[in-house]
C-alpha cells in the first residue's frame, strides 16, 4: 500500500528534524505511481503531487509520529479535501424536483435511476421514473422491470421516437400522479456525438432539472476527464454518481472528475441490487485511492 511504502521511505528519517527536498523526492515518486495506478488523471496527479510537496517540504518532523506517517497524513488530507471535504447532503424541495441522469454507454444510469427512486421514496418522496432511452434495445423494458420490482410508477412510450416529446408529456404525468420527484433516465452517449449532446441540451430546456447527475463507472481510466468536461460544458452537471465500486477498481476517476470540474460526487453504486446504493463519503474514497 502507499502508506506502507511512504513509511518505509522515511524509516531512517528520525532525528533529521525536517522533511527536505531530497528525502521527499522518492516519496513524491511513490505517490505519483500509486495515483496513476489508481487511474487518477495524469495532469491531476502532477498538480496533486506538487501540492503535497509544497505542504510537506520544510515541515518540522513532529516527535509523536514518524515522518512517513506525517507525509501519509498530508496526502490523505489533501485527497479528502480535493474529493469534497465532508459529505454535503443533497437538499430537495418538497415538490417539483427533477433529476436527469446522463453519461456514457453502460455506466449504470438505468440501474442508478431505480436506486435513486427507491432512495428518495425512503426519504418520504413520491417518485416518478421516466424512460427517455428510445434507442437501446429493450431499454424501456429494463426500466419498467426495475420500476415494477419497486412498485414505483414509470412513464414511457415505446412507440415514440421523439424524446423531447416524451419528456414534455412526462411533466404532465408528474402533475397528474402528484410525484414530488421526477427521475429521467437517458440513453448512453459519447461526449463527442454532437447530435446526441444537442439532444441532451434540448431535454434540459424542456425538463429544467434542478439536478443533472453524471453517472461514471468507477473503473474509468484517463478518459474520465475528457468526457465529464464535455458533459459539464454542455449541461452544467450538478453532481456525479460513481458506480460499480463493489469491485476493486481504485476509482481514481472520481478524484479526476472532482479536481478538474469541481462537480461534487453525490452517490456511489455498490452492486446490482437496488439497496446497493449510498451517499458518497470523501474520506472512504480517499483511503480507497491511496490503496
Amino acid at each position: 500500500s502507499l502508506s506502507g511504502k511512504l513509511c518505509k521511505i522515511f524509516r531512517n528519517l528520525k532525528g533529521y528534524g525536517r522533511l527536505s527536498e531530497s528525502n521527499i523526492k522518492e516519496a513524491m515518486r511513490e505517490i505519483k505511481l500509486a495515483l496513476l495506478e489508481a487511474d487518477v488523471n495524469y495532469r491531476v496527479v502532477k498538480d496533486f503531487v506538487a501540492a503535497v510537496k509544497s505542504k510537506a517540504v520544510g515541515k518540522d518532523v513532529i516527535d509523536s509520529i514518524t515522518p512517513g506517517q506525517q507525509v501519509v497524513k498530508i496526502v490523505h488530507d489533501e485527497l479528502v479535501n480535493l474529493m469534497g471535504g465532508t459529505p454535503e447532503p443533497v437538499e430537495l424541495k418538497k415538490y417539483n424536483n427533477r433529476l436527469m441522469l446522463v453519461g456514457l454507454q453502460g455506466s449504470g444510469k438505468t440501474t442508478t435511476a431505480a436506486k435513486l427512486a427507491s432512495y428518495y421514496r425512503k426519504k418520504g418522496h413520491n417518485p416518478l421514473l421516466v424512460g427517455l432511452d428510445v434507442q437501446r434495445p429493450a431499454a424501456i423494458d429494463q426500466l419498467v422491470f426495475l420500476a415494477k420490482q419497486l412498485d414505483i410508477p414509470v412513464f414511457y412510450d415505446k412507440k415514440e421516437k421523439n424524446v423531447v416529446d416524451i419528456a414534455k408529456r412526462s411533466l404532465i404525468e408528474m402533475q397528474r400522479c402528484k410525484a414530488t420527484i421526477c427521475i429521467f433516465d437517458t440513453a448512453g452517449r459519447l461526449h463527442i456525438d454532437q447530435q446526441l449532446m444537442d439532444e441532451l441540451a434540448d431535454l434540459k430546456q424542456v425538463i429544467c432539472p434542478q439536478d443533472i447527475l453524471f453517472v461514471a463507472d468507477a473503473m474509468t481510466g484517463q478518459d474520465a476527464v475528457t468526457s465529464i468536461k464535455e458533459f459539464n460544458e454542455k449541461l452544467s452537471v450538478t453532481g456525479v454518481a460513481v458506480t460499480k465500486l463493489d469491485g476493486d477498481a481504485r476509482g481514481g476517476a472520481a478524484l479526476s472528475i472532482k479536481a478538474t470540474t469541481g462537480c461534487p460526487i453525490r452517490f456511489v453504486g455498490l452492486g446490482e441490487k437496488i439497496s446497493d446504493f449510498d451517499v458518497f463519503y470523501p474520506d472512504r474514497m480517499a483511503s480507497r485511492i491511496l490503496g
Partner: protein
Amino acid sequence: FSKNTVINEEIIEEIEEILIQADMGFDTVTSVIQKIERSLTKNEKKDVSFIYDAIKNELKNFLSNDTLQPQPEDKDEKNLKIILVVGVNGTGKTTSIAKIANRYLSEGKKVILAACDTFRGAAIEQLEVWAQRSGAYLVKHQHGADAAAVAYDAVEAALARNADYLIIDTAGRLHTNKNLMEELKKIKRIVQKKIINAPHEILMVLDAVTGQNAVPQVKTFNEALSLTGLILTKLDGTAKGGVVIRIQNEFNIPVKYIGIGEQIDDILPFNANDFIDALFE
C-alpha cells in the same frame, strides 16, 4: 559514448503523457521508453520524430506477434463452434455478440444465440431484439432460470439444427464476486461435457474507457476460464484502450475484435498497426 546519452527529458515527458493518457500504465510506458532509449544512437536520440517512430514500431511489433491471425476461426469445417462471451457489467457483451453473429450470418453461416444472462432486468429481451434483427436463432428460458441449463439446451439446439456457431451471452459480473465467477466455470464445464474442445473461444469484453483495473479483471477471468481473446469496445469514443498492451505483455491474450459503435455493423477485426497509430492521434 553514444549509448550513454539520455533522451531529452522534455521529449520523455511528452511521450509519457500521451501513452499514460492512453491508459497504457506507468510501468509499461516506462519500460518501453527505456528499451528505446537503450537502442537508439546519440544522434537518433536528438530526433523527435525518429524517437516517436521507434516507439510506435516497438509497440506494433509487440502486439503483432500474437495477433497475426486476428480471425478466431480455426474450426474443423463441419463442426459446431462455440463462443462464450464474458466480462464485467456494461462493457458491451450483448451488443458485441449481435455484431459477431451478424458477421457470420452475412457469410451464410448458421448462428444460434444463447441467452444465459438470466439475471439482469430485460437482458433476455435485449438479446431477443438483436436475434430478430440479425436473423440468428435464440435459445432462452424464463428470467431467473439457471444459466448453465440454458447453455446446455443451447448446445443441444445448435447440434440439432446443424448450426455453425453458437454464441453464449452471459450476465455482466465483477471479477471480485467469487460466486459469479464459479457460475461461469459451471457454464464452461457444462458446454465442455457436451462437446470436446468446447467452448472453442472464450472472449472477454473490455470497455475502452477502462483503466488499469482491466488488468486484475483479465487476470481473474483468465485464471477461471483460460481466455482465448478480448473484444475491445467503444473505441469510437475518445478512450484509447492502451491497457491491452499491458494485458498482452502480462497474459499474452490478444484482442480479436474492436467495437466502434452501437449498430450491428460497428465491429472490426483487431488491427495492431491502426490501433497503435490511434494511440498517438
